[in-house]
């Protein structure tokens, strides 16, 4: 019995130490975002700011007038991109799971094959195609190429295969057509699968760095990761501003996580089962 409690204590030590290691960078960033430049430059190591100030958060929006614009761009692209993914992936997954037509199997195999292509291979041709379409520096150039995700088509297919057929049959008896059934009955019942998708797709759009770096050269069109990078270049030693900007950027994801927390682990589990 005594040995057991010793073991438990050791485990707690591991967990607590690692929790501290995880939290410290965030606390340090948060604390720096409330410090004055003087305190940042002095190099003093204190987590509680000496002169607590909210000024940095005001300054980032006034000193960099585009900051609000970048925030909007990121929100807009991630939101529309996520909605399109939810719709298109579910539609494709539903067709692959529930409808019978010739060529279905080869389409499914093609989607599986797409999963294995590393994105660097398609990156350069994608740039050239977007250039040809005149979609560089545009919202559609950022959204449309990512509007479908093979992983989640696959996930939705698995979900709909296990979906009770009776529900659809009842809807058909009530006189709903295929599309009515899908949009009014099936999709609302797919909420758990959609929630898991929402957080992953939103995060992928929101955090993406490489695609915007290549597609967007016009400062007005920047998303936050790019904006943050150029902001860092401009205000290289103003770490109080850089940390405040970083915090503004992180908040929406944490809010989203708080809402969808439950589905998050499920989503990861799914990726694990694949």
């Amino acid at each position, binding site marked *: 019995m005594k040995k057991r409690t010793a073991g438990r204590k050791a485990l707690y030590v591991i967990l607590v130490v690692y929790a501290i290691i995880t939290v410290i960078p965030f606390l340090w960033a948060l604390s720096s975002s409330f410090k004055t430049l003087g305190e940042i430059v002095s190099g003093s*190591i204190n987590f509680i700011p000496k002169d607590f100030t909210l000024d940095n958060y005001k300054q980032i929006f006034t000193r960099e007038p585009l900051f609000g614009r970048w925030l909007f761009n990121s929100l807009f692209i991630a939101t529309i991109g996520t909605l*399109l993914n939810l719709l298109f992936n579910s539609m494709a997954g539903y067709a692959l799971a529930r409808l019978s037509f*010739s060529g279905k199997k080869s389409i499914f195999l093609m989607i599986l094959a*797409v999963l294995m292509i590393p994105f*660097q*291979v398609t990156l350069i041709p994608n740039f050239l195609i977007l250039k040809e379409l005149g979609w560089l520096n545009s919202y559609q150039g950022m959204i449309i190429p990512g509007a*479908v995700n093979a992983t989640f088509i696959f996930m939705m297919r698995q979900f709909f295969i296990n979906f009770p057929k009776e529900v659809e049959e009842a809807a058909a008896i009530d006189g709903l057509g295929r599309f009515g059934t899908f949009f009014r009955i099936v999709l609302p019942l797919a909420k758990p699968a959609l929630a898991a998708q929402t957080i992953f797709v939103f995060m992928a759009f929101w955090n993406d760095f490489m695609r915007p770096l290549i597609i967007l050269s016009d400062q007005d069109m920047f998303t*936050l990761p790019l904006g943050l990078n150029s902001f860092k270049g401009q205000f290289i030693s103003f770490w109080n501003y850089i940390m405040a900007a970083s915090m503004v950027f*992180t908040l929406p994801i944490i809010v989203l996580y708080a809402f969808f927390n439950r589905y998050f682990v499920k989503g990861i589990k799914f990726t694990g089962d694949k």
Partner: protein
Amino acid sequence: MKMLSKKDRREAGQGYLFLLPALLVLGVFVIAPILYAVFLSFHKVELIGGATYEFRGLDNFMKVTFDDRAIIALKNTAIYVAIVVPTQTFLALVLAASLNAGLKGQKFFRIVYFLPTLTSSAVLTLIFMWMYNQNGLINYVLKFLNLPTYNWIGDPDVALIAIMIMNIWATAPFFMVIYLAALQDIPDSHYEAAELDGAGPIQKFWHITVPNLRPVTSFVVVMGLIGTFQLFDQSYIFSGGSGGPNNSTLTVVLLIYQYAFKTLGTMGYATAIAFMLAIIILVATLLQRKFSKEESLY
């Protein structure tokens, strides 16, 4: 009979209609680009005004062997993969096993551990650059512990290590969650039987937890390989896009980016390197699969 075929045809039409957006997007932005990439990799591409192509056969693929920067990038990436993948996998496993021991406060730890996964690579890199500052938090702690301090960002000997530490820290918790899900599927009876045989916690970890998790480990390693071979964001932000100091943070994907978008006339070459990277990732994945299968025979 005729009725049925009409119904069938209608269902086929509906099927394609449901698939249409997905097929269009994947066709234009994934399938066509793969074919286009094959074409590009055999050509010298000039992007002045419109694009012009000049057939070069296998030149782009041969060029890698005498391109010093490509060799450096490959070496950096290989070192990075070789250190980060085993470390983060082991760390994730230890954390998951600890968290699964049925202690109080599991939920709290899980939420805390998840913060890095939620945060974007750009933000994480900036936070770490601030901590890696010459008179920043990390050097302060090192000095406090009487350890040597480093110029983490400016010294070519440690810059890549700085990125490794940051990414292990950021990625391990994500894999921990995958392990955690699998751990819950190991039946308690296995552990009880081992306890009867007098096995301690460490022995139970090595003789029951680790072997039972082998398929998940295989998955975690493959995901880790794919992710680490593609290191880009952190290197780019850390070095301001150059891969410096002295090419010490130059990765293969950063090199692809530079050749494709920063220097003229090397877009075809960049595509060829991208193909080679894809093949390296594929081979590494297959080797790992084969290796872990052979191991599980015992």
